[in-house]
C-alpha cells in the first residue's frame, strides 16, 4: 500500500514537471510550478520525510511561483516604460 502511494506521487511529479516544461507563458508556468511543488511535497511525505515536505511546501507552492510572478510583472513594466520612452523621443 505504501509503494502504491509512492508510485502515484511519482507519476504526479512526472506529470507536473512535464506540464511545467511544455507551458511557455511564464504566468501560466508559475501556476503549474506550484502544482509541481505540491506534488513533490506529497512525494516526500509518501517516502516519510516530513521535514523535507514542510520546506518543499513553503518554497515550492508559495515562494518560487511568487518570485516568478513578481519578476514577470517587473519585466513587463520595464518593457512598457521603454516603449513609452521610444515613442516619446522622436
Amino acid at each position, binding site marked *: *500500500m*505504501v509503494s*502504491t*502511494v509512492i508510485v*502515484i*506521487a511519482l507519476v*504526479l511529479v512526472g*506529470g*507536473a514537471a512535464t*506540464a511545467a516544461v*511544455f*507551458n511557455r507563458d511564464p*504566468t*501560466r508556468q*508559475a*501556476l*503549474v510550478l*506550484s*502544482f509541481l511543488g*505540491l*506534488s513533490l*511535497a*506529497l512525494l516526500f*511525505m*509518501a517516502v*516519510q520525510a*516530513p521535514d523535507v*515536505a*514542510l520546506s518543499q*511546501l*513553503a518554497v515550492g*507552492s*508559495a515562494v518560487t*511561483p*511568487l518570485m516568478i*510572478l513578481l519578476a514577470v*510583472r517587473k519585466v513587463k513594466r520595464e518593457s512598457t516604460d521603454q516603449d513609452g520612452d521610444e515613442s516619446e523621443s522622436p
Partner: protein
Amino acid sequence: MNLWLLAAAVLLVAAFGPALCVAAVAAPERRLIAQNLATVVGALAFLLMAQGYGRSPYRDAALVLAVLGPAGTLVYARFLGVLPSSRTVLYGAAIGVPAVVGPVCAAVGPGREMVKVLVIGALLVAGGTVTSVKGDRHG
C-alpha cells in the same frame, strides 16, 4: 492493507490528477480554481497519510498547507486580476473536509491531537470558502 493510505491514494488519483490536467491546459482562471482545489486535496491527503503511517507529527504539513494554500491562491488572484468563484472548490471543501476529518478525529480520539485535526479542517473549509464564493471581486 492500510485503509488510510488507500483513501489517500484514491483521493490523489480522483481529485489531484484531474486538477493537474486542468492546470496544465486550461485558461488562467480555471488553472487558479484547479490550484485552489489541489491545495485542499493535498492537505486532506497529508492528513490521511499521517494517519496511515501512524505518525501524528506528520499532520504539521497539513496544517502548513491549510494556511499557505488559500494565501497562495489569493496571491495568484492578485496577479491574475481575477478571483473566480467555483462550486467545485466550495462543495469539495464543504463535503470532502468533513468526510476526511470526521474519521480521522474518530481514530485519534479526544485530546490535543483531535483539536489540531479540527483546526486543520476548519482552516481548510474557511480557506476554500473565502477563495471560491460567488462575487464580483477583481484584483
